[in-house]
């Protein structure tokens, strides 16, 4: 065995360290750049009207995006209410019951494919299934297409997090005479709590920022989202159409909406992190 010279090892270590540090800095630099631009241009659009008023026609002064904010909240909430339980239970099946079985590997494969599926295809699917058959765009269709975004992410992270709980923990609970459902809910879930919540938040954050699945499902609307059987306003499609519009005040609204989504997702993540750290 040949020993390498010390000088060479030190140089190599230096090079690797420098390369990884620079890469990290580049990543952070662009993230900060995006944040700075969004904050700078978006904050100009944010005022009381932005959160409380309906959009004004192009050219008219004032107006807000209250309808889009509410629409995004409603559709994400419905999608979460449907997608999170299905996702969590799928993850539980994969980790606790299916284990090495053939059906489980089929399910796992499907979940992975769904996770990798471009979201515009999800949108198209729901478009043909719901929008075409029912004959109109609707908030329900938008929520359903977001379910397809949330469900696989939650299922995947749930399985991963539950699997990180060592089998000895399950065995200990079972050995005390706990039925397996109590072992899963009382011990395994508790052990994986932080990871599970992070996974759910990640999925909801992803859904909040999705545009493609909503383009052909909920579409967009300048009115209050009172009836989910109609096209429903939402922030991302609003950003898409306002940013492409020739009107400067609409473009500014789009920046405001971008800032709102960014801040919403970011603060949701940070707050939960903090809460979880404090609770241990």
């Amino acid at each position, binding site marked *: 065995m040949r020993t390498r010279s010390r000088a060479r090892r030190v140089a190599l270590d230096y090079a690797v360290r420098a390369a990884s540090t620079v890469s990290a800095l580049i990543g952070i630099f662009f993230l900060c750049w995006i944040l700075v631009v969004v904050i700078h241009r978006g904050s100009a659009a944010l005022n009381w009207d932005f959160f409380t008023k309906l959009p004004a026609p192009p050219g008219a002064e004032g107006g807000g995006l209250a309808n889009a904010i509410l629409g995004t909240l409603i559709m994400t909430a419905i999608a979460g209410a449907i997608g999170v339980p299905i996702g969590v239970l799928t993850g539980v099946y994969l980790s606790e019951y299916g*284990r*090495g*079985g053939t059906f489980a590997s089929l399910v796992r494969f499907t979940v992975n494919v769904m996770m990798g599926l471009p979201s515009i295809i999800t949108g198209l699917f729901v478009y043909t299934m719901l929008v075409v058959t029912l004959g109109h765009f609707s908030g329900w269709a938008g929520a359903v297409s977001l379910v397809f975004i949330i469900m696989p992410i939650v299922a995947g992270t749930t399985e991963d997090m539950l699997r990180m709980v*060592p*089998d*000895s*923990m*399950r*065995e*200990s*609970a*079972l*050995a*005390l*005479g*706990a*039925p397996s459902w*109590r072992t899963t809910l*009382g*011990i395994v879930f*508790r*052990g994986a*709590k932080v990871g599970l919540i992070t996974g759910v938040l990640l999925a909801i954050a992803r859904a909040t920022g999705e545009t493609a699945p909503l383009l052909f499902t909920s579409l967009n609307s300048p009115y209050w989202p009172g009836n989910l059987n109609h096209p429903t306003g939402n922030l991302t499609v609003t950003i898409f159409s306002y940013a492409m519009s020739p009107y400067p005040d609409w473009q500014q609204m789009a920046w405001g909406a971008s800032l709102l989504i960014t801040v919403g997702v970011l603060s949701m993540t940070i707050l939960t992190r903090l809460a979880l750290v404090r609770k*241990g």
Partner: protein
Amino acid sequence: MNEKQPIVSEGGENQIEARTTLPSKITATADSRSKISVRNLNFFYGDKQALFDNDLEIRPNKVTAIIGPSGCGKSTHIRVYNRIFELYRDQKATGEVVMDGENILAPGVEVTELRRKVGMIFQQPTAFPMSIFDNVAYGLRLHYKMKKSRIAERVRKALESAALWDQVKDQLNKPGTALSGGQQQRLCIARAIAVEPELLLMDEPTAAVDPVATTRIEELVDTLKQDYTIVIVTHNMQQAARISDYTAFFYEGYIVEYGPTRKIFTNPSEKRTEEYITGRFG
């Protein structure tokens, strides 16, 4: 916080009361010479057979040590007694394990009740992600509907029996995982004996703790055998010699020799037992 503090403190009377009011503990009757009779036990991991025709009589209120080289089936054998192996779908046991006249491998057996009667301690301490108090109370809440004061009393008793009470009595609300490895292992012992099992299975309980904690756990085993029948798997032959009354020597899935510990260690009948004990292999 206060409601979780045990209210009762006096010793003797309470203990007797706890014993007689709970239908859990049946002390050895005249005819039951064995707590467990294993007959013709075979075990399979998928297609691979791991235990061959094991026959074993576990004596009540004694410590039975199971020794043998790595991979000889020691743990596999005791994991049949509480049917914990059934967590894994490819594992299968055939034969009979008779406990108090009932074959626990029979299909109709209530597994959760069996596991209340057969406690288990694992190699790695497995404190649950909850407070020290809740760890010990876990099994109680699972099997009994008890008043809070009653639970507190039983938790205290279990922690005392596990020689842990004095160290944790002021921090019962702290997470169990904050304790040291040796303390966590005694917490697991407290958790197991809180439901007053009849049989305690210990799967290399000192393999992951330091020498001082090992000594404590060994002392604990010696006191616990007054109330419990104990089967302990160990890699450490000195440990088996120190704490057990009976020893079974396993080799490649077979029980090569079984008898009183003194005889196994001083005058074994089988050549392979002697070779293993004198350190010629394993």
